[in-house]
């Protein structure tokens, strides 16, 4: 065991911070407060990711064969930490790099690889993720959106919901059912669907978590070319499992939480409240939650660096990530009081960002279920 960063990783982090200082505009802080799915942040991500790509950093974790640098999972973690820390200037493009690209490398045809991978590694394509449906949330395999083969196309009918990052998205990583008789995991297929296909309609679902966070996608006899199918028909669940395994820790939430907490402590000091034992206690508790989340996320990266199969450590890290977000965002509201109620203020925007942690990308309860069965080996009914 060893808990320190090698010299070259530390240098990389510093170079990245310098780059962010140079590259992020003066009003970045403002822009980032609207959330990663907002219009401003989506369009900014295109210029930003292109510059990241110029440096060779955007897809450094990809294999050299696909223009990457075979960077270690630890390198990739540093990139994710630093990006999330400053409000994710990559917008939705972190998804492209983290799991959409790698899944296309694994399951894509040569044509699909040629079509999609260079655009992802160039940093100017936006994707969205069409998994959840009105009747299929945690129980994703109950999804119903139907895609029936008709000549060279699939004809798609149904709807998706909660889709983020739809602004400017050209493509959707879409889960459909290709066999209407099939149940659960069987009969699911992945389509790399162009969002401008006829019969695809987008509607925003207004939500308190921020502008353009949630959307509904309606498919009404939408024709998606069969050449957009990723992997064999009916084998989509293996493809998704592979993709989700790549997603693993997901957003490095503790990085932003930790930075926010430092700012909260500074605000408490300004207000003369850093000597208040009750404030000290809450700051300390939140700091411990941030560090717990960081180390449990590192454990997942460590396992990945050794090439281990996904374990319940991922779920453990996610639960701790939510605890960390809750501790810090509760404190943000408590410290700033009614000031934190004004939209777009520092405390308010963090609170808003943090409040979905226990639901997005798999709920706390589902994570606890998986810890109970995989890690504690508790019996089923």
């Amino acid at each position, binding site marked *: *065991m*060893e*808990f*320190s*960063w090698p010299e070259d990783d530390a240098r990389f982090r510093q170079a990245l911070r310098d780059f962010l200082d140079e590259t992020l505009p003066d009003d970045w802080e403002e822009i980032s407060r609207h959330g990663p799915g907002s219009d401003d942040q989506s369009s900014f991500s295109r210029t930003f990711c292109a510059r990241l790509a110029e440096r060779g950093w955007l897809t450094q974790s990809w294999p050299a064969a696909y223009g990457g640098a075979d960077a270690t999972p*630890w390198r990739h973690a540093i990139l994710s930490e630093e990006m999330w820390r400053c409000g994710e200037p990559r917008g939705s493009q972190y998804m492209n790099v983290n799991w959409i690209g790698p899944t296309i490398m694994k399951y894509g045809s040569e044509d699909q690889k040629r079509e999609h991978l260079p655009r992802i590694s160039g940093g100017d394509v936006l994707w969205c993720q069409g998994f959840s449906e009105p009747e299929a949330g945690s129980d994703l395999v109950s999804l119903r959106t139907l895609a029936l083969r008709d000549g060279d196309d699939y004809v798609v009918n149904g709807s998706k919901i909660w889709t983020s990052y739809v602004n400017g998205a050209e493509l959707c990583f879409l889960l459909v059912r290709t066999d209407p008789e099939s149940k659960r995991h069987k009969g699911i297929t992945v389509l790399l669907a162009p969002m401008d296909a006829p019969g695809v309609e987008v509607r925003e679902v207004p939500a308190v978590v921020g502008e353009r966070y949630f959307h509904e996608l309606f498919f009404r006899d939408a024709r998606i070319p069969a050449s957009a199918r990723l992997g064999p028909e009916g084998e989509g669940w293996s493809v998704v499992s592979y993709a989700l395994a790549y997603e693993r820790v997901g957003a490095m939430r503790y990085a932003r939480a930790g930075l926010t907490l*430092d700012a909260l*402590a*500074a605000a408490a*000091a300004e207000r003369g409240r*850093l000597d208040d*034992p009750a*404030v*000290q*206690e*809450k*700051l*300390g*508790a939140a*700091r*411990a*939650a941030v*560090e*717990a*989340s960081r*180390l*449990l996320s*590192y*454990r997942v*990266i*460590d*396992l990945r660096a*050794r090439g281990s199969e996904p374990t319940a*450590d991922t779920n*453990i890290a996610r*639960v*701790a990530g939510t*605890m960390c977000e809750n501790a810090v965002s509760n404190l943000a509201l408590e410290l700033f009081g009614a000031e934190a109620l004004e939209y777009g203020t520092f405390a308010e925007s963090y609170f808003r960002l943090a409040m979905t942690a226990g639901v997005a990308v798999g709920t706390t*309860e589902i*994570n*606890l*279920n998986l*810890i*109970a*069965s995989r*890690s*504690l*080996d*508790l*019996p*089923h*009914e």
Partner: protein
Amino acid sequence: MDFEPNEEQRAIALAVDNLLAQHAGPARAIELEREGSYDHALAAALTEAGFLGARLSEETGFLEAALVVEAVAKAGGVVSAAAESLVAPGVAGRSLEGPVAIARAGEDAPIRFGDHARTLLLDAGDEARVVILEPDWREPVRSNFMTPLGRIRVPEGAGESLGAGSGSRLRRWWRLALALDCLGALEAALDITVEYVKRRRQFGRAIGSFQAIQHRLAQCAVQVEATRWLCYEAAANGAPEEACAIAAAYATDTAHHVFRETHQLTGAMGYTREHDLHVFSMRLEALRVELGGTAAHRRAITRSRWAS
């Protein structure tokens, strides 16, 4: 960054587990509790194997010493391993004659190993002091918390000062040591409870198949796992002030949570002396009030990180 034990660490863990399987365990802890004794036999065996005192940290490192402390706690060992193998070398730079107790000057509260200690590490504010104890300075305290307690009254100015500033060094290591004592007991308490709910049947099924129970144990598992890495990182990095306060704050908060949950989920059986849980659960509660408790550790985090 590397979260897997290396070969040497694995070998140490294996050797200490073998030794503990022979000399320690909850049954032994229950027997010693009844007699009000300290486990001199276990201490001798650990010393002979090189697992007690400064030797391990000097020859291999503090993380290895931490692994031994965790293992002893997990086996319910009634020895002052944390004070002897981590705190003494960390603060005094050498072994101190065991049993070793740690206390804050000017407090009259019961302290762990107070009635058995040969040496006292005293937190006297700015400085730490090492005091060789006279038998009549000690007095036993009756307690139900499954860890031998005593009061120690030392004459003013007794012992040797470890120098200006050594007080904060003592508190750092003390916090890490008690976090590691928590860690071992947490793992044992959780393991015992997980096994219990798999076997205990009510309403025609194992109670561990009820989701209400699964979620509570899974939540405990998250916090125990986090405690582990917080402790290891702090030990490996030489006990930095903030990291030690974090380890102690998180470990003691988890200690209380796990105490409540494990007793709840083992029903009446968990309260009995025939069931092993109490050896660890009661100790967890003793640990969580030490050195000011969770609230004090949390304030220490804030002072360490943000006080200008």
